[in-house]
């Protein structure tokens, strides 16, 4: 409650919303500034030289300028506008076969050299209790490289007034359409990251991300009932152009649901959300039992994240996260035995390259060129997510390129890449999929989620639920949650729509590590069908 790194941003639906703010707050005009690459290279060389001089066998340097802007509104009010910036340098070394790390926000040459020497001293001190020396998969130096998220409009450069006007028009649309309350927010992130290492890499990257969540609430005061419908947007690795959605970007789905793919029309979604929140108040409560589930990509991403992305992180598999995030059921022996993770239709791949995704970068935070690789191929577990000091554990010669730190002051470690479900190979639309279902539920949007520490038993809710009977959607229903055991669930996948329906969802705040770090990650899929899944009714009475 009192942690300094959190500022209170009032006005969220859940009362007071605490957001992780890791930097100092700055004026709007400073958001578009960048640091000179030549200055960063000189500073990086100071650190690399100092580390080598102190006895490091390897050193990498990350000079980061991390910028965030939050615009928070409810109904006709702007609750808060926050600009933050955090700049500094993190130096990681290997000395005596052991990692050491130190960071400073002082970018003078002396302070940077001192940080490098401190990192070496920590490595040497820790090497006394080291049982296995670090084995680093080789990386060829990239030379001097620069990369930027392909954006059309830098969200940081868009005038604050335009952002406030957009959110207030979103709120007005929801209220006009009958909402009792509406909260809407813009989260904008720009990571200006410079990486250099003793491998000979000098990599400058300018990474942009954006998220525009909203929450629309309908209240029936007489009955005391209330329901919310969250926005159906996705956080993206894009610029402000994501919010330029118009009617042409709208996709009409069964059940009268409208969603958006490449560009988002937030005002139209607010209007729809208000109507659907009111419908939720009077929707039929689900009868518990076994159902065939038809899961839209706005929902699938979270199920993929929890039941595939996390269990296939190698540090969890090995036990490094046992005291916090947990371990994994998907142990190394299962991969060696060709464990059947899912049905033959299921191919799940990891990547750090999908355009528009939250994870997309050219190089990861230890200078490894990013790529795509399979985790589950035609239903069989084939690989994990591993970084340079883990690759040898799974018999690989190179890192997968999924190393990340959430700040210059945090030590980089293995984080989830984008993990996605490959679209079906045969032509299949959502309508055709539903036509084949006798007794099912069509779920749109992510809701409540919970999964055990080894990623076996999970429970998921959603935003919108529609009953399917004899191939047709009959009505909107409520109080739905499904429970699953991960391998049985993925083995129950009987159909996946084709590439035309492939869309991404994602999380801005995936947490891991002690002290905790956050990261942003996308998950793509087309609509998928899972047969005979256990659905519970979540309605209760407080008397």
């Amino acid at each position, binding site marked *: *409650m*009192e*942690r*300094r790194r*959190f*500022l*209170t941003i009032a006005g969220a639906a*859940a*009362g*007071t919303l605490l957001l992780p703010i890791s930097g*100092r*707050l*700055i*004026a709007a005009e400073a958001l578009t500034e960048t640091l000179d690459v030549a200055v960063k290279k000189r500073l990086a060389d100071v650190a690399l030289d100092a580390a080598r001089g102190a006895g490091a066998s390897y050193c990498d340097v990350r000079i980061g300028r991390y910028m965030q802007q939050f615009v928070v509104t409810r109904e006709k*009010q*702007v*609750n808060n*506008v926050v*600009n*933050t910036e955090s700049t500094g340098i993190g130096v990681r070394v290997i000395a005596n076969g052991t990692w050491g*790390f130190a960071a400073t926000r002082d970018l003078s040459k002396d302070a940077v050299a001192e940080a490098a020497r401190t990192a070496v001293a920590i490595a040497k001190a820790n090497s006394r*209790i080291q*049982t296995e020396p670090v084995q680093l998969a080789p990386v060829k130096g990239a030379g001097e490289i620069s990369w930027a998220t392909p954006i059309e409009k830098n969200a940081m450069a868009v005038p*604050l007034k335009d952002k*406030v006007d957009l959110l207030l028009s979103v709120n007005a649309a929801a209220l006009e359409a009958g909402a*009792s309350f509406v909260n809407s927010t813009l989260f904008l992130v720009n990571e200006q990251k410079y990486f250099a290492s003793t491998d000979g890499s000098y990599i400058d990257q300018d990474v942009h991300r954006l998220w525009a969540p909203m929450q629309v*609430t309908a*209240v029936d*005061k007489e009955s*005391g*009932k*209330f329901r919310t419908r969250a926005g159906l947007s996705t956080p993206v690795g894009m610029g402000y152009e994501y919010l330029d959605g118009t009617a042409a970007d709208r996709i009409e789905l069964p059940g009268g649901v409208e969603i958006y793919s490449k560009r988002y029309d937030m005002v139209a979604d607010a209007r729809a959300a208000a109507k659907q929140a009111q419908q939720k108040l009077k929707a039929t409560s689900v009868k518990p039992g076994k159902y065939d589930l038809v899961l839209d990509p706005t929902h699938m991403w979270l199920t993929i994240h929890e039941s595939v992305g996390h269990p296939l992180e190698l540090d969890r598999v090995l*036990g*490094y*996260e*046992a*005291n*916090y995030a*947990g*371990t994994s059921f998907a*142990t190394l022996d299962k991969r060696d035995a060709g464990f059947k993770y899912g049905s033959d239709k299921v191919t799940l791949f990891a990547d750090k390259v999908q355009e528009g995704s939250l994870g997309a970068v050219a190089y990861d935070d230890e200078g490894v060129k990013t790529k795509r690789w399979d985790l589950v191929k035609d239903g069989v577990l084939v690989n994990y997510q591993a970084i340079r000091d883990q690759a040898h554990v799974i018999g690989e010669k190179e890192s997968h390129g999924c190393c990340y730190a959430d700040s210059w*002051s945090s*030590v980089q470690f293995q984080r989830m890449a984008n993990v996605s479900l490959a679209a079906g190979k045969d032509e299949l639309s959502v309508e055709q999929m539903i036509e084949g279902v006798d007794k099912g539920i069509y779920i749109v949007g992510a809701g409540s989620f*919970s999964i*055990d520490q*080894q990623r*076996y*038993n999970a*429970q998921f809710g959603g935003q919108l639920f529609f009953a399917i009977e004899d191939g047709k959607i009959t009505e909107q229903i409520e109080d739905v*949650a499904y*429970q699953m*055991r991960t391998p049985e669930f993925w083995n129950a996948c009987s159909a996946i729509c084709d590439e035309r329906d492939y869309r991404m969802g994602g999380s801005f705040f995936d*947490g891991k590590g002690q002290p*905790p770090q956050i990261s942003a990650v996308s998950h793509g899929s087309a609509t998928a069908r899972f047969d005979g899944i*256990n659905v519970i009714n*979540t*309605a*209760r009475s*407080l*008397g």
Partner: protein
Amino acid sequence: MSIMTESQAKAILDKVIELSKADECSAFLGGERTGNIRFARNAVSTSGEVSDAQLVVQVAFGTRSGTATTNSFDDASLERVVRAAENLAKLAPESEEFMPALDKQSYMDTKTFQKGTDEVDPAFRASAAADSIESCKKEKLVAAGFLTDSRTFSAFANSNGNFAYQTNTELDYTCTVRTEDDTGSGWVARNLGDAKQFDAKKDIATAMRKAKGSVEAKAIEPGKYTVILEPAAASGLITFMMFGFDARQADEGRSFLAKKGGGNRIGEQVFDERVDLWTDPADPRAPTLPWDQTGQARKKMPIIEKGKVKYLQYSRYWAQKQEKESHGQPGNLIMAGGDKSTEELVKGTRRGILVTRTWYIRMVDPQTVLLTGLTRDGTFYIEDGEVKYPIKNMRFNESPVIMLNNIEELGIPERLQVGGGQNQFLALIPALKVRDFTFTSLSDAV
């Protein structure tokens, strides 16, 4: 200079207030020195120390307000941060919900600093890790844990003449112990203000006992059971429920404490009459700062008394609109218990389940505070007053509101750090014995 003395902090805050040309100015200055050590697979994985400090400046022109922050405290930086806040305020829209700077506050005396905890060093941390690891190695168990210690200072001033300064110390230790074959898992958590009271060897024994005792767990049918939730297990559900104690949400009809037809349920019997819950910043067992994030004074206040709702959190704006009083947001949570240990609660139980810890709790339906989550790191079947055998973990779908109406007995409250991640606070929560707790499925996770 991350940890400043009172006079150093006051000098900076005085300068900020003096520099501001806005109608009003509030400033918050805080700093920390934290240390940590992380271990897994019976070896140290990472360790470090972080020193940092931050100044937050809030200013207002009329009802337009702006906020800016800096890490640098020289005169030029202070001037820059004040001007940055003023520039943002000038760009900000007028706010109908704007509240002026706090009037002069009177703060309670709370003892949040313990000499000794501020002197925890890398050797102390390394020995805690070594004690945990060596104990486990001897018995072919595997330890993964985290120890973090912190010394912080907080200071607040505004243009109405408020000034306050206080220091805080804390030590937090958690350790998960697993059997080498991954068939058993145990856990222990310890939060202390005074590091001298910390004994890793003693605490690790609890996690080791649970790990060994949870091997060869049997599956039982999910359903409604009498459960004994150890304090850590109970706190997961109770603290989640506290998000509903916001007056505005309740008055707006979107909380379980909203009244049908409008208004809120203050004064109503919502829980079993044995439920007493309050906040007290000065409680020596879980002391907290006497002001909240906005500088508003905290008080000792009943929240639930004999099962009746006594208090909802009114923001200053909502309190003014509803003509109610506003107090500082509570910084700790204290629940009354009984005098029985967990072992004594087990002795008095004919059939039931003992739960060490609850995990991954999420809101399923805010209307009823229906929560889902799982048991973890030691779940046991009780028969005729004895722990008979370990059982597999289970998922629950339960509302703490229903749970706190099904109380059988209360145990001795324990100090816990609750809230998760970096959004943490101190609580004193007893073990709870409750009937008809709803488990909905089995988990194969160990």
